[in-house]
């Protein structure tokens, strides 16, 4: 095909430019893995305080307040019993007290209950490693039909009552922001951390690969 010199030169320049743009785009793609879009707006301290409801095992974010086993029992009978059962083991909702598993000497009907509601295989008292989590979950999600409707003191009372059902508090006990994080849950010592194991294994694999590369 006939092509005057000038046109041909322009054509070459255009192709060159096009390729350059392509390669710039490739570079931009690499840089784009961490773009500086910066469209986040300032989140104020008062907004954080309104929403930050998570309670940590060391008691961080626990509100001031207190509640007794007796106060908790009253609330439990009015608002919780219909789902968790008379003594926290009957279901249909999650079992609150006792050990995990199929059978228990203290609960001869357990197998029948589990057949009806398999989630009763595990219990809060048998599974949860920190009592602070009980407070956290009641306050954010219970009762199921009216979440976030209980006062901080009421949540202390209910937490105390569940701990009492698990023989972890006396009938006369009270619970507050200082005493709650000190409760030792039976399953705490049984906990193993699969993520820590995974990270450890990944590190070892990586170092093996690196050693191989050096060789």
């Amino acid at each position, binding site marked *: 095909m006939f092509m005057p010199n000038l046109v041909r030169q322009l054509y070459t320049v255009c192709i060159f430019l096009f390729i350059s743009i392509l390669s710039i785009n490739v570079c931009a793609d690499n840089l*784009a893995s*961490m*773009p*500086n*879009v*910066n*469209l*986040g*707006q*300032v*989140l*104020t301290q008062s*907004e*954080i305080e309104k*929403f*930050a*409801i*998570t*309670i*940590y*095992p060391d008691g961080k974010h626990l509100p001031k307040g207190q509640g007794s086993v007796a106060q908790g029992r009253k609330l439990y009978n009015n608002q919780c019993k*219909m*789902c968790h059962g008379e003594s926290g083991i009957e*279901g*249909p*909702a*999650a079992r609150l007290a006792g050990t*995990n*598993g*199929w059978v228990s000497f203290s609960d001869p009907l357990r197998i029948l209950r589990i057949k009806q*509601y*398999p*989630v009763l*295989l*595990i219990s*809060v008292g048998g*599974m*949860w*490693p*920190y009592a*602070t*989590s009980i407070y*956290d*979950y009641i306050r*954010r*999600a219970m009762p*199921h*039909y009216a*979440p*976030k409707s209980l006062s901080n003191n009421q949540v202390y009372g209910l937490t105390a009552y569940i701990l009492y059902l698990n023989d972890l508090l006396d009938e006369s006990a009270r619970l507050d922001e200082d005493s709650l994080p000190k409760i030792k849950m039976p*399953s705490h010592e*049984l*906990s*193993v*951390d*699969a*993520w*820590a194991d*995974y*990270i450890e294994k990944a590190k070892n694999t990586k170092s093996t690969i690196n050693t191989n590369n050096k060789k």
Partner: protein
Amino acid sequence: MKNKSLKTVAAGGLLDRRSFLLNGLAFTTAYPLSSIASTSSEAHTVIGETLPPWMKVPGKGALAYGQPSTHELHIKRHLEKNTPETSLFSIWHTPIENQRGIITPSGLHFTVNHNGIPDIDPNKHQLMIHGLVDKSLKFDIDSLMRYPIVSNIHFLECAGNTAPNAVSFNALDQSCQDLFGQISGSEWAGVPLKYLLQEVGLKPSAKWVTVEGADGGSHARSIPIEKLMDDAIIALYQNGERLRPEQGYPMRLFLPGWEGNANVKWVHRLEVTDKPAFTKDESGLYSDVLDDGKIQRFSFHMGVKSVITHPSGKQRLPEKKGFYEISGLAWSGHGKIRKVEVSADGGQTWAQAHLDSPILSKSLTRFHIPWQWQGQETTLLSRATDEQGNLQPTRDQWREKYASYSFNHYNGIQAWHIDSNGVIKNVYA
């Protein structure tokens, strides 16, 4: 079909796919062409008289939002019967034995909700990030939409998928939907979380993030920072459209390859911390009890797993000694599927199945193998291996590791028993 020319690759009638394809080709070319007769009455023929009714009337208009055929309305999710309904805890299973390929229609995607599905106004919803950061920030949806959005095809599986086979003393006579319906595949699109974490600036002590939803129960999980800086996204789209409410509208955390429960729906708050919060689900329902009584926390990965979906439980093979294309799904939270082997004789011999493209990391992968049923009682099995070399365990191998009542992360090899009448049942191999 000339079975003599088909190569078998394992006992029980498993066939070589290549020989099958060549044979099929010969079959089609040998098919006789029907003769075209011309008669004198041809001029008076009204073609409509002998054709189906839908070929003789104009069709309907389309809908603004398309729906499945009215003939397919029976293909639905099933509600898990063992869920205590009074606790608003619902588990819906997807009918995977009615699907092909690797994408689950959004409306059929499995969904597990611990306190119902909230009705969130997207204009009032914000993603807040605070805690161990240089500056606390919030992002509305319009802002998030302006960040680079990545899309990838991934599976999502509930940690409790196939739990009945993990803990039930007897193998329950249930369908694939009942036993395996808490797995789905979708294309998820959203903003890589590392962009947002980079913007707030992580303090050196930042190790975990407590991720929380804006639902009635404020569902929360503690997620390691390593995952969030790797392939985690704030998902805004599923299969090309904005998230469905039961998948977390207007936004959810998506963690490729990790248990469904950690993929926090309706996400609104990320609190960066130096340690996990031990929220309700990581304290109880989503922990694993090991054989020695220890309780394993934070086992996020979903292990390598496979299931034959065609044919599967509660179905019946319609033709004795007929040809069937065995097909199923394999997936791994550790990467791509490397191979899937199938046995048609209860595990004595195995043959490698064909894997359909695309074979993607942490995604459903579709496998096939042609099979000539010999009409006898047998058991079909499938076992997958992922690119890390993880091989799916047998049920016994899996159970050795866990307490008899531990039901999460079950990935044992699935066995479908076929009796001489072609009736298919879930069994323990």
